[in-house]
């Protein structure tokens, strides 16, 4: 074992030696620096291993061979080992990253760099107050030097601001230290802590001074303009170090000194942290300079960490895990992002669209963003989870809200940025070249994130259940991403099918889950089949699709809250990437993500309440929510409804589904939406229905569902874009389902299931076929199509059948839903909602006819004359679905009966009974099979009759019509499609004025305006920044000690 003291000794030794030979041999100094960093990394690393493997006692190093407090002592415990290791790793990587720049500036720069990292080590290890001060100063002077690595005016100004601010702070710390010595009679931190200075009226000032200076070093909002400027102006490589290494060290200093003042100071710290977290994220929303944005984000994250320390007495033994989870994510992600920024060198985040030139970097970027927001499988996810759960246990709703709101705001800008990088079409993209030394560190950081994420998973309560098999599969698909489509497609389909067999025995007997598993997996296979029609390699499609399916199936498998949420987030992430693949889907993918995050946080909050009610980690906890049950139910419902796109939360859907790729739309529409339905069903089944909160909620949801349906169908009727029409139709269909299951009777749920299954099948067919046609004809506008029945008969039949199902026309299965609806509504007594539902149901015919007529009937356009049928790979899955529909229509009892039996126990009355093929309720009866037979027979007879009458009808060509004895010259003029429901719109269009969209726009503008107004405090004048610092001190003093 190499003693920790050698970190200092060797680093300084090398530094001095470099000074000695630096001038003469340049290369030597470079390697010497790296060797020094490497050595430090090695020392701290070996100590870390030592503490991990055989948990040995904490090592104390006495300098000068005298015992503290008379001499300075350092300490190397597990935390010190970990943090020094982190610092040294980022130091080493940073050294590699900056190697060329440092070398250009010369030996001295390298010396400074080396000493900088060393000083951070000492800051972490030292147990002496004054020594802490000294090495903080070493660190800040080194920083002030490194800022000037790129000599530009901005860097100079930033450095000056930094010097002045830290100068003042250091002074305050110095006074605090000397008085601490005066009161405690010692400079040793442990002695000072033991002296309990917080108690006495006089001595508490010293405590205050120390706290305030340490907090100020952590750049609290608003006294952090100087810090942000440093991030902005300095070389990103330095930004990475300041954000990852210095912040880590300072964070640990705060942790060391936390007990200084006693409990009541923790609240102040937490509040300051919270304000910083929310405030600086808020201002980030208005920021376009990448480095500055990262600065805001870093400060926000450190604010969160500060806040967590402030909440330490609440978090108890969870503190370490939570703090570590979030710290490590911030550390790796920020370092990575700053380094990326250094590679791209864009002045504006729009410029990051250049990342598209190297998909791998893009992948890394995505990794970092998702890690920062706290998506699985990254440590921050588990950190946040534990954090929320623990806070909930203590009943600290306010803190939970602050955390979730802050994280959401962070999502606002991070995902706008990611969206730009993935999709934005931006002129003058900076073109960058990747040198290995710049690329390697970023790469390592990404690995760290994944590795640590997987490593900490079992440490979370119930985390060990999380099933990583699907994720491994995703990883594998990433590995083979370079292969052509058909191979990856086969692999994916194979994987899903294999998983079907794997999961069937698990779910056997649980019909509810079995049905949804069927929808997700079978649907997955069928929709993927369409992928065979695609050419090329489709980079990144398959991993993301599989990630979505992994999430979906995970939701089904989940037995604990954690698993459920884990999979939920996974699904969100995957689907986001699928959606944003579309040509024009950047804004839609963005709003989808925002709604999803907000929803996820609502769910998280609800889960927190559920967990806190009984410390039960299993999903059953939803059944016994005793803390604010109404709020919990509402939050959960809202969370799930963001996925089902119910009225008010629907605005992301039309764009997202409409603009997505032709085979992605069916995935996200027919399959993904069902995840929300599943969530709602689980919630409704578990929750205590007797409670007034639940009943009121259900009543409201009933109305929401009904209105959603009306809005969806009506909007669909006025669309000209085929895919948006279908998207709105999905909104409406999900409205039906929401309404049905809110009824909470056996009939209602049967209706709900019928709709779920039907919508899954026909929407898959419609999106597949229409999507295929849209691609083939190269337009979304229906009025530019027409007459396709001649060219694509199979597609026509598929669409026709789906339409009959949507319309609920007997004899097809859609009618089953309508019939069940009627009975359910009469039984429940929700007559008016019911009336709205049926009204909407009839409006459906408007868009259905518009769709099929404008695309397949009417006049064939000249430029489509030599169109062929769409790819068989699209038709095959469609027709599989059609067969499914037909079976369901002819023999509904085989599906509805077992479902009825399954859900019967949950409901008081068993309302539906069966006589053979005949379904009976207290109101009416319906016999699907007979209807099928009767209609079938009669239809055949009548057809036969007509054929007999006019067997040899003569086929005439397109323009041969009764057109006022004229012959229409152009099909465009004759094809009646554009805005055909003008009259209807005139009469009822006012019903769908986009209030909701307007509302959300107003909201987002509000946020941006507030942000813009807030950030004016950063006037840029270094004097003002000094003023902020002093202001912070004085205000904090007055609040905390009221001037004694």
């Amino acid at each position, binding site marked *: 074992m190499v003693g920790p003291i050698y970190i200092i000794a060797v680093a300084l030794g090398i530094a001095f030696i470099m000074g000695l030979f630096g001038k003469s041999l340049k290369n030597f100094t470079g390697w010497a620096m790296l060797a020094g960093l490497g050595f430090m990394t090695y020392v701290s690393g070996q100590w870390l291993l030592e503490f991990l493997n055989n948990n040995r006692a904490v090592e104390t190093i006495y300098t000068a061979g005298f015992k503290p407090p008379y001499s300075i002592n350092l300490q190397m415990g597990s935390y010190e080992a970990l943090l020094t290791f982190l610092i040294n790793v980022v130091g080493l990587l940073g050294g590699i990253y900056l190697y060329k720049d440092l070398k250009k500036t010369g030996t001295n720069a390298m010396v400074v760099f080396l000493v900088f990292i060393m000083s951070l080590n000492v800051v972490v290890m030292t147990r002496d107050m004054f020594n802490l001060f000294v090495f903080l*100063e070493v660190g800040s002077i080194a920083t002030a030097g490194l800022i000037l690595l790129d000599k530009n005016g901005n860097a100079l100004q930033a450095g000056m601001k930094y010097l002045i601010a830290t100068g003042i702070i*250091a002074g305050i710390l*110095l006074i605090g230290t000397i*008085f601490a010595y*005066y009161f405690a009679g010692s400079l040793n931190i442990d002695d000072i802590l033991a002296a309990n200075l917080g108690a006495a009226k006089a001595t508490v000032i010293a405590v205050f001074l120390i706290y305030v200076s340490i907090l100020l070093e952590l750049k609290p909002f608003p006294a952090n303009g100087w810090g942000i400027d440093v991030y902005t102006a300095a070389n990103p490589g330095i930004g990475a170090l300041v954000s990852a290494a210095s912040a880590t060290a300072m964070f640990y200093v705060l942790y060391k000194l936390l007990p200084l003042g006693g409990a009541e100071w923790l609240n102040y710290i937490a509040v300051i942290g919270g304000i910083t977290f929310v405030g600086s994220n808020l201002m980030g929303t208005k920021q376009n300079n990448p480095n500055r944005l990262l600065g805001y984000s870093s400060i926000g994250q450190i604010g969160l960490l500060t806040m967590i320390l402030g909440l330490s007495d609440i978090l108890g033994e969870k503190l370490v895990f939570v703090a570590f989870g979030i710290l490590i994510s911030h550390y790796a992600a920020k370092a990575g992002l700053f380094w990326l920024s250094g590679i791209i060198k864009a002045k504006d985040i729009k410029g990051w669209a250049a990342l598209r030139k190297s998909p791998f970097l893009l992948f890394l970027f995505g990794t970092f963003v998702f890690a920062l927001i706290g998506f699985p499988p990254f440590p921050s996810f588990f950190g946040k989870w534990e954090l929320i759960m623990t806070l909930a246990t203590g009943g600290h709703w306010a803190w939970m809200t602050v955390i979730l709101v802050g994280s959401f705001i962070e999502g606002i800008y991070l995902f706008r940025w990611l969206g730009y990088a993935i999709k934005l079409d931006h002129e003058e993209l900076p073109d960058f070249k990747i040198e290995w030394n710049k690329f390697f560190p970023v790469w390592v950081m990404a690995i760290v994130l994944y590795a640590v994420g997987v490593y900490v998973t079992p440490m979370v309560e119930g985390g060990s259940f999380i099933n990583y098999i699907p994720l491994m599969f995703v990883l594998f698909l990433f590995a083979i991403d370079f292969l052509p489509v058909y191979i990856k497609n086969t692999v994916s389909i194979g994987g899903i099918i294999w998983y079907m067999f794997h999961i069937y025995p698990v779910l056997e007997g649980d019909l509810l889950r079995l049905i949804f598993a069927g929808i997700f997996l079978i649907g997955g296979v069928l929709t993927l089949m369409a992928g065979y029609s695609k050419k090329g390699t489709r980079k990144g499609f398959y991993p993301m699709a599989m990630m979505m399916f992994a999430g979906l199936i995970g939701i089904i498998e989940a037995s604990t809250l954690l698993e459920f949420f884990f999979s939920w987030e996974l699904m969100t992430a995957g689907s986001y990437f699928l959606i944003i693949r579309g040509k024009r889907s950047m804004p839609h993918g963005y709003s989808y993500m925002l709604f999803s995050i907000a929803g996820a946080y609502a769910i998280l909050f609800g889960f927190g309440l559920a967990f806190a009610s009984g410390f039960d980690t299993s999903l059953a906890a939803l059944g016994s929510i005793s803390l604010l049950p109404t709020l919990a139910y509402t939050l959960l419902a809202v969370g799930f409804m963001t996925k089902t796109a119910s009225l008010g939360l629907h605005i992301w859907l039309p764009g997202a589904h409409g603009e997505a790729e032709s085979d992605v739309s069916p995935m996200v529409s027919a399959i993904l939406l069902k995840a929300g339905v599943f969530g709602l069903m689980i919630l409704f089944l578990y929750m205590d229905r007797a409670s007034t909160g639940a009943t009121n909620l259900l009543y409201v949801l009933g109305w929401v569902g009904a209105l959603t349906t009306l809005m969806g169908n009506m909007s669909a009727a006025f669309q000209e874009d085929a895919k948006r029409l279908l998207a709105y139709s999905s909104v409406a269909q999900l409205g039906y389902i929401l309404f049905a299951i809110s009824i909470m009777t056996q009939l209602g749920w049967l209706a709900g299931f019928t709709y779920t299954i039907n919508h899954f099948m026909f929407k898959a067919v419609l999106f597949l076929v229409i999507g295929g046609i849209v691609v083939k004809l190269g337009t979304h506008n229906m009025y530019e199509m027409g007459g396709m029945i001649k060219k694509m008969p199979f597609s026509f039949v598929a669409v026709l059948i789906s339409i009959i199902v949507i319309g609920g026309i007997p004899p097809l299965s859609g009618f089953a839903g309508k019939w069940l609806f009627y009975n359910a509504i009469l039984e429940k007594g929700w007559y008016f909602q019911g009336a709205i539902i049926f009204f909407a149901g009839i409006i459906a015919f408007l868009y259905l006819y518009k769709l099929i007529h404008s695309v397949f009937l009417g006049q064939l356009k000249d430029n489509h004359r030599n169109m062929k049928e769409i790819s068989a790979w699209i038709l095959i899955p469609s027709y599989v679905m059609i067969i499914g529909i037909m079976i369901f229509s002819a023999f509904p009892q085989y599906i509805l009966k077992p479902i009825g039996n399954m859900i019967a126990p949950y409901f008081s009355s068993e309302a539906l009974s069966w006589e053979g093929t005949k379904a009976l309720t207290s109101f009416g009866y319906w016999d699907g099979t007979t209807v099928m037979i009767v209609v079938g027979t009669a239809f055949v007879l009548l057809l036969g009759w007509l054929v007999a009458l006019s067997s040899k009808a003569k086929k005439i060509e397109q323009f041969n019509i009764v057109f006022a004895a004229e012959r229409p010259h152009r099909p465009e003029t004759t094809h009646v499609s554009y805005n055909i429901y003008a009259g209807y719109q005139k009469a009822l269009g006012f019903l769908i004025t986009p209030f909701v969209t307007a509302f959300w726009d107003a909201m987002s503008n509000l946020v941006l305006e507030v942000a813009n107004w807030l950030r004016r405090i950063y*006037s840029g*004048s*270094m004097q003002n920044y000094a003023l902020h610092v002093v202001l912070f001190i004085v205000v904090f003093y007055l609040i905390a000690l009221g001037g004694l």
Partner: protein
Amino acid sequence: MEYIIISTGFALALLGLWGILSQKNLIKIILGFTIFNTGINIVMVSIGYVRGKAAPILDVIKPSEAADKIVDPLPQALVLTAIVIGLGVTALMLVYALNLHREKNSLDINSFKDLKW
């Protein structure tokens, strides 16, 4: 006695702070900073003072009776360190000021507002 010293120290620190916050000329601000530091140093020394005791140098004082005859050596040691650190920082600030002046040909604090928001 020591009260006068320590209050002088505080006064100087305040004075320096005032200089930092109100002066427009960069050099003056830096001067303010040094004054601020000096004040703090004085405060530190006076903390170590023990009434009526001599400097902690054992030339005439016997080590055996040192404990009752000398003032606390530690703060003086700290002050020395603090002074040197202050020196370093000040030097750095001056160099910055020099370069800033090269950039903008001005030392007015308000001419360095390129970074904002």
